């Protein structure tokens, strides 16, 4: 069995600060934003739970059973991205949540084209995304946002994709574990707000320009 120190990748002699830093970097890597709509969401959640437990255990040991603190930081695998909103397609959202993508797609395809609204396009896009069909996913998310520009859920999905399409990575990129290109966009991915994504995109653009990447 791995010790909590192995899980965080630090030596048992590491200082509290080193441990906190290692924990923060891993938490950034497994951040829900990087795996929203992805079939690997659960795996990332497990990893996150693992490092949270390891961090809590170490901190508790060091403080002689005192309070733990991972909750203050990136505990955050909430249900923010699970498809639970009350809607016309709540049954389909449930199927997607359970990973029954093919069934969900079949039901979606059965919806008459006249009643295909923004949510329909969003859900269909989510199914494409998890299948790895990034181009179709992008088209459907774009349509969903065009039909209902005020919906935050659709907008967030589209923003995530746009960030990736500009060359942005998940949270692991640009951290100490990946020492290349310290100024790259992925560094900004600590937050999950739309502003951060926008800032990331702006950075990505700048980086592209200054290295003459031809964009």
């Amino acid at each position: 069995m791995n010790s909590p120190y192995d899980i965080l990748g630090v030596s048992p002699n590491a200082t509290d600060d080193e441990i906190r830093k290692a924990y923060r970097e891993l938490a950034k890597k497994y951040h829900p934003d990087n795996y929203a709509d992805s079939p690997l969401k659960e795996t990332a959640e497990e990893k996150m739970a693992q490092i949270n437990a390891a961090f809590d255990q170490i901190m508790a040991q060091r403080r002689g059973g005192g309070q733990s603190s991972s909750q203050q930081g990136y505990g955050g695998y909430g249900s923010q991205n699970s498809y639970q909103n009350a809607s016309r397609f709540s049954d389909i959202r449930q199927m997607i949540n359970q990973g029954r993508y093919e069934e969900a797609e079949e039901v979606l395809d059965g919806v008459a084209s006249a009643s295909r609204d923004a949510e329909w396009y969003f859900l269909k896009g989510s199914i494409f995304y998890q299948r790895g069909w990034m181009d179709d996913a992008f088209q459907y998310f774009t349509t969903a946002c065009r039909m209902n520009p005020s919906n935050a859920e659709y907008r967030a999905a589209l923003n995530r994709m746009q960030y990736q399409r500009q060359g942005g990575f998940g949270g692991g990129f640009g951290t100490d574990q990946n020492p290349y290109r310290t100024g790259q966009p992925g560094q900004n991915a600590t937050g999950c707000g739309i502003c951060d994504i926008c800032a990331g995109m702006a950075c990505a653009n700048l980086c592209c320009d200054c290295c003459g990447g031809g964009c």
Partner: protein
Amino acid sequence: MFGYIRAIKPEMKCLEYDLYRGVYCGLCRQLGADYGQFSRFSLTYDCTLLAMLGLALTGDTGSHFHWQACIANPIKKKWIHTYHPMLRYAAAVNVLLTAQKAEDGIADSSLGKKAALLPLLPPLHHMAKKAKKRYPALGTLVEEYGRTQNQVEQQQVSSIDRAADPTAKVLAGICRGLSHDPAVQKVLDRLGYHLGRYVYLMDALDDLEKDREQGSYNVLLLRFPEQTDEEIRDYAQQTINASIAQVAAAYELLDCKCYRSILNNIVYLGLQTQLRLILQPSCPKRKELPDELTL
């Protein structure tokens, strides 16, 4: 495969490069041992990544690097990885995909090229047969890939995702074979799928001008019949970037016990740099240049 997946040498430490080369050389030897000397010419860096990833997941215990010379350069000695089951697997993948690619190449090339390629087919077939015998599941996977890829071309599919699907699926299957743990296989599946999508679209992007001139099948040309090459390149870059992000996200979930820094180089740097290189037509192909020299 195509050699798009590779490390960026100027960003590697000397030791990292030696180990990377060592696995490459080890793979070359494994090819020679398993499929005869001729097969060694088919080696690509893509399969080196596969071998390294597999070795990293197992922790590569019990194997060694030997300080030896090789026939290609008998004077200079270098580190060469010893035979290993993971290298054997990667070698089989290499042989099967090369044979498949040669077959496709003959199907859609001109007469002169056909004549040049034809004599290569029997030995390639022979090697592929050997590989299939050793890894039957892998053999079926690649056959299925050849079949679906042909369908895509015959039906003149104009959806980027549909066209890339066969290549993506075959690589997903190949990567899944690197582990026996179902939880790891799930991650490898996603990683492989997007590596395949990346490779396919990179190839389509690379052949854009050639295919336009010759009127060959290229999904990007069908998807954007009206647009200029410049616009197509721009769009393709974005959708390829989306796959790179997925590869990176999946890669982060893997527990690599060694070679981490080399794999980081390939995943975080190599994929994007290769993309940038083929987007600059003036740039010598595959030349590994860092885009900026900063220390």
